[in-house]
């Protein structure tokens, strides 16, 4: 067994553990031990603002993705197999397009001379173009689009495992469909909700290209601080420290979440 696993373990060691360890080492060692890089993060307001903004955006994206994704997963679960395959393919389809292309596509839709503004002006709904992009709004819209599959798939996997006869049992005991949903289906789907939310939230924390292109320069997420710190301080330690803090936040989230739900449920959708 160990012989079978060891190549995979070696790959993980070489590609993940070593680089991350090196990253952490650089953040505290630069011509001697130093905590300067961390002192900066915890004392300068811009870091705090970026972390706060990143968590706010991630939270907003997660909630919107849940509101949009739950009905889709529910529908995919409720319809016959052929239809559910179609629905799920539509959900996964955007995966085949690069994040960069999708960001530019949103730019074409949302900008001042974009499709949406031109259409609304044509309908005379608005007289001045709306500021839909180059701000946090545009960033959130595009990020939701990119991360939606990570919400829908775990939800669908969980719903698949809810036995259909439970719903019938509820109905036979006289509960209305909405009551059965609220009291039976929804609670049973909660592990999927938690799994999807964790995936989306954690992935969103590290988003870079989307806020860079659609944020107009004002939406500075943590990943952008990482790249900016390399430029600004001419050493990787300053950037590594930001990455380490972000990594620790993600680990903390996983630890908290794992108290409620087993981790393989989030990652492996068992």
């Amino acid at each position, binding site marked *: 067994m160990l012989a079978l696993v060891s190549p995979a373990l070696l790959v993980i060691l070489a590609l993940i553990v070593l680089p991350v360890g090196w990253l952490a080492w650089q953040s505290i060692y630069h011509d001697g031990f130093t905590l300067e890089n961390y002192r900066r993060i915890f004392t*300068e*307001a*811009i870091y705090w*603002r*970026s972390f706060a903004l990143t968590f706010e955006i991630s939270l907003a994206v997660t909630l919107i993705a849940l509101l949009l994704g739950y009905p889709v997963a529910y529908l995919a679960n409720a319809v016959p197999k052929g239809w559910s395959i179609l629905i799920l393919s539509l959900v996964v389809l955007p995966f085949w397009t690069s994040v960069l292309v999708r960001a530019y596509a949103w*730019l074409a839709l949302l*900008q*001042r*001379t974009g499709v949406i503004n031109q259409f609304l002006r044509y309908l005379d709904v608005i007289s001045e173009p709306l*500021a839909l992009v*180059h701000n946090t709004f545009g960033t959130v819209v595009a990020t939701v689009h990119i991360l939606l599959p990570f919400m829908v798939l775990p939800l669908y996997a969980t719903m698949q495992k809810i036995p259909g006869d439970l719903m019938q049992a509820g109905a036979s005991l006289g509960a209305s469909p909405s009551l059965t949903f609220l009291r039976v289906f929804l609670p049973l789907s909660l592990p999927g909700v938690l799994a999807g939310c964790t995936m989306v939230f954690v992935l969103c924390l590290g988003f870079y290209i989307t806020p*860079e*292109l659609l944020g*107009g*320069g*004002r939406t*500075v997420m943590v990943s952008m601080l990482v790249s*900016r710190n*390399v*430029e*600004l301080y*001419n050493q*990787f330690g300053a950037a590594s420290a930001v990455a380490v803090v972000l990594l620790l936040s993600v680990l903390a989230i996983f630890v908290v979440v794992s108290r409620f739900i087993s981790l393989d449920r989030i990652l492996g959708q068992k």
Partner: protein
Amino acid sequence: MNTKRSFGLGCALLGAIGVTTAANAAEQITFVSQGGAYQQAQTVAILDPSAKKLGITINQDSIPDAWPAIKTQVGSGKPIWDVVDTPTGNCLRGGEQGLIEKLDFSKIPNGAAMPEAYRSPYSVSYEFYSSVLAYSQKTFPKDAPNSWADFWDVKKFPGRRALRNHPFATLEAALMADGVAPDKLYPLDVDRAFKKLEEIKPHITVWWTSGAQSAQLLNDGEVDMEMAWNGRVSAVAKEGAKVAFTYNQGILQSTSLCILKGAPNLDTAVKFLNQAVDPVHQANLPLHIDYGPGNPKAFETNVIKPERAAQLPSEPANAAKQALMSYAWWSSPAGEAAEKRWASFMQK
């Protein structure tokens, strides 16, 4: 440091191909630039002719931002590269940190003949570009904004605006908008510049980060005026968009050539440096791309036609209207402090 061009495949391809003129020659160097159409233009205009003249082989590599690689290579004690074309600030900073060779100008007569502002103990100017005021001719068919004071005047010139999300050239523009003469900018009055920037901040729709983004904003009519690099604006205009720019109060910036400390082929690298800034080779460059020669003597060679010269940022009459960026100031402690202050300004 930022690079003004973004590169896709070009980087990878050029890096892989390399150039093999005079394949039998024993002497060779590795030359590094930023890839893409820009490095191709250099290959035709400067690198191939220099290799031929010296009878050497010039291997090419490319990287969008050379600075981290310079640090790692020299730090390892065994650099692979010899000559790097990089924003001038990198050469100065590298020189101070012992990463870049000090140049012996007696061996680089072409460089020695260049004006002092165009070289440093560690580098020679290689090519010029400019951060200019660009605008949509649709929004401003006549009476277009012509100075940074106009850019700041939101009453007289209403419209959406973009600036670069970087202090380089932006602080200079703010000071010129506040009435500082282009030749009296340095040392920059950083407080005054940021104060002036606060004034325009609410009217800035986009703070762009890449040259491609600035071109897209102008091309799609997303903004009516912006600061952009001259080559980007002329590329958009060539595609048929109704856009134009003025060199008036542009901020003239350069990349320079410098040699890595402990370069494997130091002597050949110095010989190459001299050829690379040869006035005729330099004059070839703008025939292939919208950047100006780093050696002003290129304009005396008759290689560049007068109408072409008039379009170039470093043409003497155009240069006279602009501010020459002081990389020495930007790599000084005051400059580095200003760079750090930028982040707080943006996130306030």
